[in-house]
């Protein structure tokens, strides 16, 4: 047919959209009505509690009147939730680290940001060193701050960041080992990975806090935080190894063979050809593991470290503030949600982009 026909007459767009997407069958009509009713009745009280009736500013607990949330509590204790017992006068050091972390990793979310690759590499190599100098202090005239004074969001970030940085190289070695042709090395890596993956983090933390001191020779000791970090890193490296192994398996055989044909030895072949490709492929996987680790760091409160959930837990029982438990939990939930949701969006986008490439 060559002559063009007028387009079919459509109803007014929003109405049509609703008819297509909300009221297309009898059960959808029913569902829509029920859901709209539920949302309608719950959103009002929720908004009231969260914002309209809530108290945001004030001087002391008595200012929290009315039925709404007492955000004043968060406001007053924010310093504790962010830094734990870190001395006020030294908090600029933590702020610098927060800032540098943001500089290194936020651009990763923005495509075409100049030099974002280099910022990322800096975040994984240079930044830990700066942090190692800055946070504990004790040199270059910086006052020493003992690790038992660290706490709050700062400690949560340290645990997750060190866990990921430490587990990456270990994970690479384990993944390579698991794909090795030498049965002893492969067997060892398989056992190591599977054992760590099978046990819950909380037992690992218990082991690190209660048993690690028994494994070490007399007179040798780590601080509790360091022990927890060792536990978290070993545990995480097993997960990391599995993620990286996925990347290694996705590299076509031809790449390995081409590397060998060029006469490259095992390590050079891995370093120059295989790993760069494999690691790029698994960035979304690494980010997802990181999200998991970030959320799992809350478990350290069970061994008595004050992470952000730990600081909130210890203040909601303060007799001066009555019934602020829900506000506290909502605050922590919101903090975690912002971080994790952002990161998961990033990894989903990346996954979609990488998807076009290597799949066969």
């Amino acid at each position, binding site marked *: 047919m060559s002559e063009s026909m007028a387009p079919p007459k459509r109803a007014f767009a929003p109405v049509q959209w609703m008819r297509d997407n*909300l009221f297309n069958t009898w059960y959808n009509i029913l569902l*829509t009505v029920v859901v709209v009713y539920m949302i309608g009745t719950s959103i009002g009280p929720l908004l009231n509690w969260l914002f309209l009736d809530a108290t945001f500013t004030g001087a002391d607990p008595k200012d929290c009147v009315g039925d709404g949330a007492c955000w004043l509590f968060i406001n007053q204790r924010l310093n504790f939730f962010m830094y734990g017992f870190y001395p006020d006068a030294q908090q600029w050091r933590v702020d610098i680290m927060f800032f540098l972390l943001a500089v290194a990793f936020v651009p990763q979310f923005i495509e075409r940001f100049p030099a974002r690759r280099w910022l990322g590499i800096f975040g994984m190599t240079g930044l830990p060193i700066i942090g190692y100098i800055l946070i504990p202090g004790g040199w270059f005239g910086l006052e020493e701050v003992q690790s038992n004074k660290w706490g709050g969001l700062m400690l949560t970030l340290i645990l997750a960041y060190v866990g990921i940085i430490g587990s990456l190289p270990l994970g690479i070695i384990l993944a390579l080992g698991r794909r090795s042709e030498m049965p002893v*090395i492969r067997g060892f890596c398989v056992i190591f990975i599977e054992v760590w993956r099978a046990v819950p*983090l909380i037992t690992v933390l218990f082991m690190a806090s209660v048993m690690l001191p028994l494994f070490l020779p007399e007179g040798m000791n780590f601080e509790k935080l360091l022990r927890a970090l060792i536990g978290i890193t070993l545990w995480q490296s097993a997960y990391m190894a599995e993620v990286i192994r996925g990347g290694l398996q996705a590299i076509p055989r031809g790449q390995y063979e081409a590397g060998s044909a060029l006469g490259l030895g095992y390590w050079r072949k891995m370093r120059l050809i295989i790993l760069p490709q494999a690691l790029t492929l698994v960035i979304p996987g690494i980010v997802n593991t990181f999200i998991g680790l970030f959320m799992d760091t809350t478990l350290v409160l069970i061994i008595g470290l004050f992470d952000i*959930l730990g600081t909130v837990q210890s203040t909601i029982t303060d007799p001066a503030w009555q019934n602020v438990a829900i506000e506290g939990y909502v605050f922590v939930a919101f903090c975690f949600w912002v971080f994790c949701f952002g990161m998961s969006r990033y990894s989903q986008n990346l996954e979609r982009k990488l998807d076009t490439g290597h799949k066969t």
Partner: protein
Amino acid sequence: MNDNNPPLQPSRSKPWNDPRVRAIFFQVVALAAIAWSGWTLIENTLANMESRGISTGFGFLDQSAGFGIIMSLIPYDATYSYGRTFFVGLLNTLLVSAMGIVAATILGFIIGVARLSSNWLIAKLSLAYIEIIRNIPILLQIFFWYFAVLRSLPTPRQSVDVGGVFFLNNRGLYLPDPIAQPGFGWVEAALVIAIVAVVIIKRWAKKRQLATGEIFPTVKVGISILIGLPLLAYLATGGPIEWDIPALKGFNFGGGITLIPELAALWVALTLFTAAFIAEIVRSGILSVSKGQTEAARALGLHNGLTLRLVVIPQAMRVIIPPLTSQYLNLFKNSSLATAIGYPDLVSVFMGTTLNQTGQAVEVVAMTMAVYLTVSLLISFFMNLYNRAAALKER
């Protein structure tokens, strides 16, 4: 390339350039290093325990525990041994994990399908659920369900009372407990017969369908046999069950079955959290089935539900099972967070109280880890079996 290279000779390579020799060398070195570090660790530990006068061995398992546990699936009181506390904790861990796995699977499948619903509102609501729940730490969710919900429940004396049989208060949910009387064996026997009958009918129906194409209503008939036969036996023997109905005695309700708030909170939190992940797995599984399959099913005249049940889900299962397995493992491992709210699981009872009272950290932690390792491997093993059964059979 240098043209002046001497002509290639059959390589008289040095032994250390032979990859096989090198591989053996490395493995021997690795083995030696592993053995040496393992030995050092063990020696250190033994030396440390010796020099610090810490008792060793598993003798403590026979000593009487002397502390109470709120919930136990096997008989337990303070006079039982530490070894018994191990099994009490283990069974409680397995109970909450099993309950969580069943509920999370059902909820996850519903939300995963709802995520693909043609109803915009339902699809977005599922998306919001997934994105909120899975980005908040599970420990926080457990705390929330425990402390926030506990506060809103009434005290035992003001219980929510449903027909004088079910009671809900801040000590738990109380249900009547069926107690078998003599003669109940007939009912059990009837149930066994019913199960056998259903299996036979199913086989026969399938054979008939293959031969004649006639469909026998297996599901309806099966369910009515499964319910009907034991019910008949029950009535015929004069109802040999007595219900132990919970009643307020002193401070608390006595009798009946109690679902304690710790178990409920843990169960709800584990279910909701894991369901969000399962929903995403189900969604991507369903999306992995090519549209042609759905269209072909529609062309055969199958309606929506049947298409999903007979065509899409069976194929999606192949994609779903491996990640589903790791979610089950995660749920099982996350059940150890029970210790934060006082549900008496393995970590809380055995690695908590028992470890504390005996001080034998090495033995207790080793036993606990061995349990988690074993059960994780078992879950993987059974899911792999199921996966093999569901895998594409190419003929």
